[in-house]
């Protein structure tokens, strides 16, 4: 009996992700939670536009691909039609915090009973590393070649802090995947999000600090170091909202 093996809700095929990309870790954690709760048959996932657009090939549950940023609206449509099913979206920072800010904020404000897995890697991965709403001040990207200048490009958005102000949000936590301890904490948070949904408590979001070695222009190991040194101070981990049952 193996102690650690691939979760069943994660289809046994290789992913298209770059070496060291932490999307793979987060996919596995979501699948592990789905397995442990025994809900694969009752779950519908919504894929974003971004690097994780192809995740409909990877998750074993039913999947729907949404247009850029609209996942929370698509998830709303599914959930309202099937209030007893589990619905989650999986979105990157450009998808959720730039083009889809409106859909995100209003799904949260409505207390839409869905779970959002929000992957924050401070850049647009699929399009080749442009500035994201979460790009750190001074960070060099394709569209901030001299570093993000807060005077012209403004400031990064801290989504968990922002959404925690809304009454419809039942659970908001920021976690990371830079070491085994943080990965296990992330899994716990994802589980919590799905439990909140199961208890019909409302909107849950788990923001996960993640790496993009390719577009950051560094090795996977260096990328983990950058996450720790640059991202953790700007995006403090922790629970930002937890409604009582």
């Amino acid at each position, binding site marked *: 009996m193996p102690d650690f093996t691939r979760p069943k809700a994660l289809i046994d095929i290789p992913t298209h992700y770059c070496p060291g990309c932490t999307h793979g870790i987060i996919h596995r954690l979501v699948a592990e939670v789905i397995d442990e709760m025994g809900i694969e048959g009752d779950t519908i996932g919504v894929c974003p536009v971004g690097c994780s657009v192809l995740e409909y090939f990877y998750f074993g549950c039913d999947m729907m691909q949404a247009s850029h940023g609209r996942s929370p*609206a698509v998830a*709303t449509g599914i959930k309202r*039609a*099937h209030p007893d099913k589990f619905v989650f979206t999986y979105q990157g920072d450009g998808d959720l915090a730039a083009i889809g800010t409106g859909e995100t904020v209003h799904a949260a404000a409505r207390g839409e009973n869905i779970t959002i897995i929000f992957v924050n890697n401070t850049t647009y991965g699929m399009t080749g590393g442009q500035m994201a709403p979460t790009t750190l001040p001074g960070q060099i990207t394709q569209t901030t070649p001299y570093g993000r200048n807060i005077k012209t490009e403004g400031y990064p958005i801290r989504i968990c802090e922002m959404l925690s102000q809304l009454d419809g949000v039942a659970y908001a936590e920021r976690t990371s995947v830079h070491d085994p301890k943080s990965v296990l904490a992330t899994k716990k948070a994802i589980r919590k999000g799905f439990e909140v949904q199961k208890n019909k408590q409302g909107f849950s979001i788990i923001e996960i600090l993640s790496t993009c070695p390719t577009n950051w222009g560094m090795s996977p190991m260096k990328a983990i170091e950058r996450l720790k040194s640059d991202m953790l101070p700007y995006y403090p981990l922790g629970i930002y909202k937890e409604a009582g049952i």
Partner: protein
Amino acid sequence: MEKVLMKGNEALAEAAIRAGCKCFFGYPITPQNEIGAYLAKRMPKTGGVFLQAESEIGAINMVYGCAGSGVRCMTSSSSPGISLKTEGISYIAGADLPCVIVNVQRGGPGLGSIQPSQADYWQSTRAIGHGDIRVPVLAPSSVQEMVDMTKKAFSIAEEYLTPVMILADGVLGQMMEPVSFDNFEESDARVSEPPWAASGHGFSRPHNIINSLYLEPIELENVIKERFERYEKIKEKETGAVYEKDAEIVVVAYGSTARVVRSAVDMARENGINAGGFRPLTLFPFPEKQLRDACKNARKVLVVEMSMGQMVDDVKLALECKLPVEFFGRTGGFVPNPEEIFNKITEIKEGL
């Protein structure tokens, strides 16, 4: 046959419920607000869902999610709002999902006016979203047709797996007429879950994917070709028009304008002019064969629209430039009156 007096927008909303529409997602915009208000009142009492979205973009994507999960649903809006929905409509068409989209047209471009208009003909029939798509467009001309075409729209959507548009206008939405719902049966409201729906596989089938992305060019081309074969079937089976044969001057109009044209044509006939009306019931597919049939003995064709002339393109295409086509139109807010159309018909007659 029992009839009730209803506003076009409300009649359409009631028809949607009777046709088994379970979820409605919309955003306020004049002149279609009665649809949302009616459904907000009625949906909770019929076990359905009414949700006011944060935007038209939100609403159409809720429709995408709901339709993708196999549940009959609808959204409605008016011209500027439809522009916002076009992204979502493209994804819905690209994923072959059935749903109904109502456009109660107002004047444009931009914020335009809140008065009736028919200036979204091109948008509905040509540019309802990016990519190689068409969307069936039904054109009601009375409150009764608002009702009947709503039922028809859901049935076309589900038979051919496509979004279907009902292209009304501010006149039809706001006017009151006696209307009957006798055409509906219990079975219209029954919805069984389609096999392709993403609604949870329950470990009883492989997982379903609702998607419009095909990275392999040949896959995308095959999917599009198959979709266009379906459009051909729609052309064959669903195209409709009402018209008079053997007229010398054929006057083409749809929607509320067709009502005015009816009066003008009657006036012309009373004055000894052999005019005939042609009213498309479907704008895509455009009733080309029917128009050619109506024009067998025609010497001239007049197209009347509440726009600068958009459907006139389809009329010319259908007639392959074999007949001279004239146009008369007013823009948003000016519903042409029968006299001015009659005068135009008389002028054409004198020039023959």
